């Protein structure tokens, strides 16, 4: 997950072939006081650059689709399975994993990395985040233990939900060595209504109206760049085109120019791409509220950045253009100041930037104290991805 931009280039790398292998390697490193960097395809070099690691634990050897239970709409995967490969497999059954984050260079992103980083794409509007799709996990801990939690049925409340704990933990608690996921039927057809405006207030109003309408949206995004914005409402299902027409009517009724697009995949590929920066730029993920969408657009515009937003969720990605690292730090600080107290997490950014500010924007509060206690219980030797996460975890 954090291969690029961290100090792992010359480090010994191991590619365990089984979960037990991963556990043994972690235990040996913990015993020797050696830090371990757990990586997938290395498409998301996020977090603090962290410490020098003695070992790079690579999920490439754990790349099996263990089960695809088509009738039950579930799958069990090893962490090194690439989302692209999985999608090709599920396509034949008319199914999908409703998780469409940017896949990175060579479309190499792995399920382990996407879960560890809790990354997602436009489908999150309807189907939720990785946390909402994970049914169970098996993890290797730094004491060598293999533990599993959850199960592989879509409804289950037995035991603690460690699957959610490990989702988004950036490999700091251990290595996910197997995961069970909920799948969904692939929509029969898709269509998008798109509206454009140069007024961030109008953009926010129209996005709000769509979010509160009884239209059943698959995705609801906004885009903002250089004083021009668009709202995109995508529908999936038998009546996708009809629903997109209804959405277009709604958008037009609010005074915005609109159109419907049936061959809409390029629009959404662009939205996904907007969650990443160009080389030398930076991305700030804003956890805001839908009602402040216009403020976030303005903050992006002032910073000379582009913005992609999941309008109904309040989550936005501000992509700052390439600049000298010092200037990026200043620009990020300014965005944070304007949008405070909304958490603004830095994702893509040069290592200099990620080590000169707290990428996580996490205050010293009782929640952080509790997170440190969780880390101390699961990884008492601070073996797994040390000093990369919130509060230096």
């Amino acid at each position, binding site marked *: 997950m954090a291969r690029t931009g961290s100090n792992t280039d010359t480090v010994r790398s191991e590619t365990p072939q089984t979960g037990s292998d991963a556990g043994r390697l972690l235990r040996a490193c913990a015993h020797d006081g050696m*830090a371990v960097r757990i990586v997938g395809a290395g498409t998301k070099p996020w977090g*603090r650059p962290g*410490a020098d690691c003695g070992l790079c634990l690579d999920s490439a050897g754990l790349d099996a689709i263990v089960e695809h239970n*088509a*009738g*039950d709409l579930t799958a069990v995967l090893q962490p090194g399975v690439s989302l692209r490969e999985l999608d090709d497999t599920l396509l034949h059954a008319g199914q999908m994993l409703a998780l469409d984050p940017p896949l990175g260079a060579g479309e190499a992103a792995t399920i382990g990395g996407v879960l560890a980083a*809790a990354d997602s794409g436009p489908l999150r509007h309807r189907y*939720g985040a990785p946390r909402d799709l994970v049914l169970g996990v098996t*993890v290797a801990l730094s004491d060598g*233990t*293999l*533990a*599993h939690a959850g*199960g*592989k*049925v*879509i*409804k*289950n*409340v037995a*035991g*603690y*939900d*460690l699957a*959610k*704990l490990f989702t*988004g933990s950036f490999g700091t*608690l251990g290595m996910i060595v197997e995961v069970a996921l909920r799948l*969904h039927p692939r*929509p029969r057809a898709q269509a998008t209504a798109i509206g454009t405006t140069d007024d961030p207030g109008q953009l926010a109003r129209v996005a709000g109206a769509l979010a*509160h309408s*009884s239209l059943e949206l698959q995705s609801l995004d906004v885009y903002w760049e250089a004083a021009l914005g668009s709202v995109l409402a995508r529908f999936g299902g*038998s*009546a996708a085109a*009809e*629903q997109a027409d209804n959405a277009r009517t709604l958008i037009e009724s609010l005074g915005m120019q609109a159109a419907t697009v049936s061959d809409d995949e390029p629009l959404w590929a662009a939205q996904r791409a907007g969650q990443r920066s160009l080389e030398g730029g930076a991305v700030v993920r804003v*956890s805001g509220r*839908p*009602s402040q969408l216009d403020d976030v657009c303005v903050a992006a515009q002032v910073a000379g950045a582009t913005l992609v937003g999941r309008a109904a969720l*309040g*989550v936005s990605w501000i992509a700052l253009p390439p600049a000298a690292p010092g200037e990026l730090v200043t620009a990020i600080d300014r965005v944070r100041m304007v949008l405070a107290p909304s*958490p603004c*997490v830095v994702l893509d950014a040069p290592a200099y930037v990620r080590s000169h500010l707290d990428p*996580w924007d*996490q205050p010293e509060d*009782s*929640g*952080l104290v*509790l*997170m440190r*206690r*969780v*880390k101390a*219980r*699961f990884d008492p030797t*601070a073996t797994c991805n040390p*000093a990369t*996460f919130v*509060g*230096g975890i």
Partner: protein
Amino acid sequence: MNSPDTATTTSLLPGHSPITPGLVARMRKICGDEHVYTDADQLRTYESDGLLQYKSTPGAVVLPASTAEVRDVVRACADAAVPWVARGAGSGLSGGALPVAQGVLIALTRMRAVLEVDLPNQRIVVQPGVTNVEVSAAVGPTHFYPPDPSSQIVCSIGGNVAENSGGAHCFKYGFTTNYVTGVEVILADGEVVTLGGKELDHPGYDLLGTFVGSEGTLGICTEVTLRVIPVPEAIKTMVAFFDTTSEAAEAVSEIVSGGVIPGAIEMMDNLTIQAAEQAVGAGFPTDVGAALIIELDGSLAECEACFDDVVAICERNGSLSIRIAQDDADRAAIWRTRKAAFAAMGRLAPNYYVQDGVIPRTKLPEVLARIAELSDEYGLRVANVFHAGDGNLHPLVLYDGDAQAEDAEELAGRIVEACVDAGGSITGEHGVGVDKKRYMPRMFDELDLAAFQMLRCAFDPRGLANPGKVMPTPRLCGEVPGPYRRHPLERDGVAERF
């Protein structure tokens, strides 16, 4: 039935103390005399939750009215090393709110305020004692809160959060955990922690996700922020009747795999139909093998596009007749029949024992056949009602009095085992509590349980919050394995901790 492990569940663990007059006095000072009960008559009300088979009398019941009062009560308990159990409406079906004998029961029933309705952001902030239906009422008629346990008229949001409650509409819309965006929690040491908020994706570990469904063992939530969503444009409800549950199960599989995600898809078998029809009189035929309630909701265009498909699938799989709800009253009658299923069992037998197993949906015919076999073997009738979309079974083992109680419990246990053997779970929405903890080793080995305990110990190292629940055997936390070690880079000033 007094299960043998009731005693170990409700008695004090090593390091825990019984309630003292000093603690009672302190709680009276915090909450007022009238909100601390110690009389035997008052305590009796609280000795069981919705699962009446288990009983235990607490040392005192306290009813705090605010976050500050809860915090102070929890701190007082921590100072006195007295364990406590949080309780909402007491409608839980796993004994999750069963008191610890001589411990404190903290009832959240006075914390019933809707604190904020924020429709522009599709959020509502409530205290834990607010009932499930009150949430939908507060955001209606434009919005609603999807998780809808059958007990929704009485059950509280605090309890829903503790149990990660489900309901009929969860197959499409998700469970409580998918709708809680923030909680304010009092940890067992009295620390107040806010997890999440109105915004999504707060930085750090998803402790919110681990807290929801933790059955009151990680702390007490005193404030809950929930996501609510717009009401669907259209709802179409139908009931298809079949000769056998297998045919109905086939129809379910075909509907779901065909790309239709109904708002709800619920099955009742013949015994359940008989009981519910007697109770509600909605006109369900009582001589059929299965009733399949299918509700399509969403945009009118999408509902209409799917409706004919669903009807055709039911007919192809042998449905005898299909009743389509003609109006709201008709729809309400259909749902009343489904939701009355548990309560109506009293018409068939004096007692019943309900299970909550989950199976992969494709294993439905196989597991139902196994349940029928077991029913014959024990000579006890089993009625089946279930959330068919997500494979969550509620077999109701019918019995008559104490003489049959032990057999009924054993049969129920074997049904749970059949679910686990089919690749499923011991509980889909009722929780483990005390009732199912003995089955936990069927799903989780010692290492898994040890990992659960790591989480528990991070939140509550002294084990004062709802001890004796979830884990099959009570266990203590070891010492925290040393303070967080500074990394050499930090020590050298190369990296700074934020």
